[in-house]
C-alpha cells in the first residue's frame, strides 16, 4: 500500500492522560497510526481538535511527557494477512505473544515491535493461475499448505487487478515476489489490510445452512446459521466463556477465530494448552491447526482491547475470502464497549446512556454487519459467523450494550443466573432465548436430518412453555392440586430439561452431541410422553409414572459413546414397567 504523506509527519506531545495523548505540530488523518515517544509506542488518531490530534495509545504511557516526539505513519491500523496466522496467538494489534515473550520475557513491556506473521518462514507455493490470465482483486492465485488442515489460498489483494506477466511456483517467504502483473504490481504471499475497513465481497447470501455446535439447546432450539450473528449475555459465572469455548471446539466451521477481549489471562492459557491437544471431530487433527487467538486480557492496555475485535474480524474475513466458513467468538464485547467508553470519556465527548458514547449502537451494528455468508470477490462462497458474549452489569439485560446488541443480532442465547446457581448447564434460559434463523433453517433440518425434526422441536418448546405456566400454579397451590395429565406434562418437561437440555461441557462424551444423537434423544423423549399418557389411561398412578424403573438408565444413556442401544433399552424398560411386556 502506498504511504501518502499528509503535511509534516513529526510533531510532539502536548498532553498525556492515561492512554490518551494529545499531540501537536503535525498533520494526520483520523485513524492514522502514530508512534509516540522514544520507544515508539503505537497509537491511533481518534480525534482532531483544532490543530491538535487526539491519539489513543495501545501501550502504557507512564513516563511519556509533553514535548516527546510523535510521528505519524500515514497509515491506518493494518494487519498482516498471509500464511502463518493459523496456530497463532496475538495481542489486540496482531503482535504474536510468543514473539513478545521471546523479546521481553514473561511480562509484557512496551514498545515491542513484531510482525503479525513470520516474515522469514518459507512456504511452498502452488499456483493455480498462469501467465496471461487476467486477475482481479480477491481471486485465488494459488495455494500454500499452511497447516495440516488449512490450505491457505493466496489471494490477489482486493484493491489490485491486471494481467499476470509472471507467476512462479516454489518455496517463498511471504515477502518474496511470487509474480508480477502487467501494470508492474508485484504479487506476494501476503498483503496488509486496515482492520477498521470491512473486506469487500460480491454479495451476501441468505443464511440457510446451520452452524452446528454439537450443543443440544443451541442446535435444536435456538440454531445459529453459518454467516449468522448471535449474542450470549449473562451475569458473571453463568457460562459465556464455557459456551464460547464449546463453539470453538465443536462448531462445524473450517476456521476458528477466538477473541479474548478484556477477559482473564488463564482462560487464554486454557485454550492455548488445550487446543493443540484437542482433536477436531471432523478431521481428527488438533483443533489448533485451524484456529487463531486474539488475546488482549483485562490487564493489557485498554486501547488495544478496543482494536482487538477488529483484528479478529479482519482475520476472519480474510479466511472467508478463501471460501472458508469461519466462526468468530468474541468474549466479551462488553469489555470492548467499555474500552470505547473509557476513550470517549477521556476525549470529553458528550456521554450517552450510562456514559457510553452516542456511537455505541452504530459501532456494534457495523461490527456485526461484517458477519455473513457471502459470494467472495474470487467467486467462492465463504462465511463469517459471529457470537459475541455480553457481560451486563448485575446480570441485568436492560443495559445499553445488551440492548443495542440485541437490536442487531439474530440469535439470543440468554444466560440465567438462577439456572447457573442450580448448576443446570448450559444455563440458557429456554423461555427467553430465541433464534430468528429457526424458520429459515427448518428446511435444512428437514432435508438433512429428518422430516420430523421441526415438529419435535416445536413440541418440546410447547411443553417447556406450558411447564412454565403450570409452575406458576404449582407455586400457589402445590403439585398435588394439578390434574394428572398436567402432571405428566411436568414430568416430561423435567426429562427435556434434565436429560436433553442439560449438557455438561466437561463430560468426555456428552460435551459434543451429533445431530443424529439429538434427533434420537428427542424421539425417545417423545416416546416416553406417549407411554406416560397410555399408562395413565391404563390406570397407572402419577406416582408410579414419576418413579418408574428405568428412568435413571434413560438419563444416563447420553453419557455413553454407544448411546443408542442403551436409550432403546431404557425406553423399553419404562414401557414394560408401565404398560407391561409386548406393548
Amino acid at each position: 500500500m502506498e504511504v501518502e504523506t499528509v503535511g509534516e509527519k513529526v510533531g510532539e506531545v502536548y498532553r498525556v492522560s492515561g492512554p490518551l495523548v494529545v499531540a501537536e505540530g503535525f498533520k494526520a488523518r483520523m485513524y492514522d497510526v502514530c508512534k509516540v515517544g522514544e520507544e515508539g509506542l503505537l497509537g491511533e488518531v481518534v480525534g482532531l481538535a483544532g490543530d491538535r490530534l487526539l491519539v489513543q495509545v495501545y501501550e502504557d504511557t507512564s513516563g511519556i511527557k509533553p514535548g516527546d516526539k510523535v510521528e505519524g505513519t500515514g497509515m491506518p491500523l493494518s494487519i498482516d494477512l498471509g500464511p502463518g496466522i493459523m496456530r497463532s496467538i496475538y495481542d489486540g494489534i496482531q503482535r504474536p505473544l510468543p514473539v513478545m515473550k521471546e523479546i521481553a520475557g514473561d511480562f509484557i513491556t512496551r514498545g515491542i515491535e513484531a510482525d503479525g506473521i513470520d516474515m522469514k518462514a518459507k512456504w511452498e507455493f502452488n499456483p493455480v493461475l498462469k501467465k496471461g490470465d487476467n486477475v482481479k482483486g480477491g481471486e485465488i492465485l494459488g495455494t500454500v499448505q499452511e497447516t495440516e488442515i488449512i490450505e491457505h489460498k493466496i489471494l490477489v489483494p482486493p484493491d489490485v487487478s491486471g494481467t499476470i506477466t509472471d507467476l512462479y511456483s516454489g518455496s517463498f517467504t511471504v515477502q518474496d515476489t511470487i509474480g508480477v502483473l502487467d501494470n508492474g504490481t508485484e504479487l506476494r504471499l501476503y498483503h496488509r489490510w486496515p482492520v477498521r475497513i470491512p473486506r469487500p465481497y460480491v454479495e451476501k447470501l441468505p443464511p440457510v445452512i446451520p452452524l452446528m455446535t454439537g450443543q443440544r439447546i443451541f442446535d435444536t432450539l435456538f440454531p445459529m446459521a453459518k454467516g449468522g450473528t448471535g449474542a450470549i449475555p449473562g451475569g458473571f459465572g453463568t457460562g459465556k466463556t464455557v459456551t464460547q469455548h464449546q463453539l470453538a471446539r465443536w462448531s462445524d466451521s473450517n476456521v476458528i477465530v477466538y477473541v479474548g477481549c478484556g477477559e482473564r489471562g488463564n482462560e487464554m492459557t486454557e485454550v492455548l494448552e488445550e487446543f493443540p491437544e484437542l482433536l477436531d471431530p471432523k478431521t481428527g487433527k488438533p483443533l489448533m491447526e485451524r484456529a487463531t487467538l486474539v488475546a488482549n486480557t483485562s490487564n493489557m492496555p485498554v486501547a488495544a482491547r478496543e482494536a482487538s475485535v477488529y483484528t479478529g474480524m479482519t482475520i476472519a474475513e480474510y479466511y472467508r475470502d478463501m471460501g472458508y466458513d469461519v466462526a468468530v467468538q468474541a468474549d466479551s464485547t462488553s469489555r470492548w464497549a467499555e474500552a470505547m467508553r473509557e476513550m470517549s470519556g477521556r476525549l470529553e465527548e458528550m456521554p450517552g446512556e450510562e456514559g457510553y458514547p452516542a456511537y455505541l449502537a452504530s459501532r456494534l451494528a457495523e461490527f456485526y454487519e461484517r458477519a455473513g455468508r457471502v459470494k467472495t470477490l474470487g467467486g467462492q462462497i465463504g462465511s463469517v459467523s459471529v457470537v459475541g458474549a455480553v457481560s451486563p452489569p448485575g446480570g441485568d439485560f436492560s443495559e445499553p450494550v445488551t440492548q443495542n446488541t440485541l437490536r442487531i443480532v439474530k440469535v439470543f442465547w440468554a444466560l440465567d443466573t438462577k439456572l447457573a446457581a442450580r448448576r443446570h448447564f448450559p444455563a440458557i434460559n429456554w423461555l427467553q432465548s430465541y433464534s430468528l434463523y429457526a424458520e429459515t433453517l427448518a428446511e435444512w433440518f428437514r432435508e438433512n436430518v429428518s422430516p420430523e425434526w421441526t415438529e419435535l422441536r416445536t413440541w418440546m418448546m410447547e411443553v417447556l412453555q406450558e411447564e412454565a405456566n403450570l409452575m406458576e400454579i404449582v407455586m400457589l397451590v402445590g403439585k398435588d392440586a394439578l390434574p394428572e395429565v398436567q402432571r405428566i406434562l411436568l414430568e416430561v418437561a423435567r426429562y427435556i430439561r434434565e436429560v436433553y437440555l442439560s449438557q455438561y461441557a466437561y463430560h468426555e462424551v456428552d460435551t459434543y452431541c451429533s445431530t443424529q444423537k439429538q434427533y434420537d434423544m428427542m424421539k425417545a423423549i417423545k416416546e416416553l410422553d406417549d407411554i406416560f399418557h397410555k399408562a395413565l389411561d391404563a390406570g397407572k398412578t402419577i406416582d408410579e409414572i414419576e418413579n418408574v424403573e428405568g428412568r435413571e438408565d434413560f438419563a444416563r444413556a447420553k453419557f455413553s459413546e454407544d448411546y443408542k442401544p442403551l436409550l432403546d433399552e431404557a425406553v423399553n424398560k419404562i414401557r414394560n414397567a408401565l404398560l407391561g411386556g409386548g406393548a
Partner: protein
Amino acid sequence: MKEYKTITKVAGPLIFVEKTEPVGFGELVMVTLPDGTVRRGQVLDSAKGMVVVQSFEGTRGIDTSSVVRFTGDIVKLACSKDMLGRILSGSGDPIDGGPKIVPEDRIPVIGAAINPYARTYPREFIQTGISAIDGMNTLIRGQKLPIFSGSGLPHNDIALQIARQAKVLGTGEEFAVIFAAMGITHEEAYQFMKDFERTGALERAVVFLNLANDPAIERLLTPKMALTAAEFLAYEYDLHILVILTDFTNYCEALREMSAAREEVPGRRGYPGYMYTDLATNYERAGRIRGRKGTITQFPVLSMPADDITHPIPDLTGYITEGQIVLSRELHAKGIYPPINVLPSLSRLMKEGIGEGMTRDDHPQWNDQMYAAYAEGVDLRGLVAIVGEEALSEKDRRFLRFADEFERRWLQQDRYEDRTIDQTLDLGWELLSMLPEAELVKIETKFIEKYHPAYRKKGAEAAEEAA
C-alpha cells in the same frame, strides 16, 4: 531536580501545578509542606503548562507555598527477602519500629501484565480444611478467589483459617502470606496480627497496613504494593504466596473519590467507568508462570454494600476473579460457621484440580450431586413456606431434611477444625445416603458402590464374614 512553588488549585486529593518543564505521566511527586512534612503523589495528567497530581497521603495542610518536586521516577517498592516478618504501611514504609529494608531491587508497583502465553494453567488442589471450600468450591494454587461478605460476617475468621490451614497435599510446601489491609479498622487488623503472631505465621508474612484512619487515596496503592512484594517473592525466591487483600470495598470507595475529584463522567452508582479495568490490573496479578516455581494465589475480601451481589463492587469483581465464595447473613443468623452459601459460590478452576489423582475419583460427580440435592432442598423450603410441609411427598421431605443436615453437619465446622478432603467427601456421602438411591442420578453406579455408606457397610460385613 524539578521543583516548583506553583500550586494553583487543590481539589480533594488533586493538586494542580503550573510549571514550565515537561513532566512524565505517572511520575512520583513529593510535596513538601511549609512545616517540612512530605506528601507523596503521582502525576495523573501532564500537559504543557499544567500538571495534575493525585496525592496519596491527603492534601490537608497543602498551600500555595508548598514545594512540588517531580522525581522523574515512578512509584516503586523496595523489595528484599527481608520483607518477610515485617509490617509496612499502606505505601510500603516499615511501621513496626524495625530497621529500614535494604532493597535488593526497587520495583515499579504498577506491575506489568503477564503475557498469557507465559502462563500455565493452575491445577494443584489446595486443601484449606474447610469443607464448603474444599468439597464444593475448591481453591487451586494460583487462583484468585474472593470472599463476598457483608458487614458483621466472619470473613476475617475464614481468611485466617485459610491462612493457617492451606496446604498442597504431599508437597510439604508452605505458603508465605502477604496480608494487605485497606481501610479496615484497628480491631480487625489486630485480630489478624495477633493470630499471625500466635501461630508463628508472621515470620513468613509481609503485612501492609492501611487502616480506616489512614489516608483513603493511599489505599489505591496498597494492593499494588502487596502484589509487587508477592511477585518479587514468588518469582525471585520461588515461594508460594497467598495474598489476602481486605477490604476491596474500601479500595473502590477511594477510586470513586478520585474519580469524583477529577470530575469524570460517573458510571454505575458513581463508580468510574474504568473500575473493571482498574480492578483487573490488581486481580490478574495472580497465577502461575511456565518455568517458574513460585505461585501467587489471591484471596481478596470485599463486603457487599447492603448484601447486594449486583452492586458494582462484587459484580465487577466476579467478572474478573475465578469464582467467588459468598457468605450468607441467613446462615450466619442460624449460627452456622462458616456461613458459606454454596449455591451462588463458584470455583472456576476446580474442575482441573479435583478427581482421581488430585482429590478423589468420586469428587466431581459427588460435587454435582451435593449441589443438586441442596438446591432442591432449598427450593422446597420456599414451597413449604407457601403450601406447608404436609403438601410435600415423602421424597421431597427427605430433600428438605438433607438441606438442613447439610448446613448443620457438613457446612458447620469449628474455626480450628482442619478437615481432610476424605473427611469432607465422606461426610457428604453420609448426607447423600439420606436420599433414595435412585435420586443420585448425577453419580455413576461404580462410585455409589464404592463410597455410598450402604455399600460400604455391606462391604465391611462381607469382609468380616470372609475373615
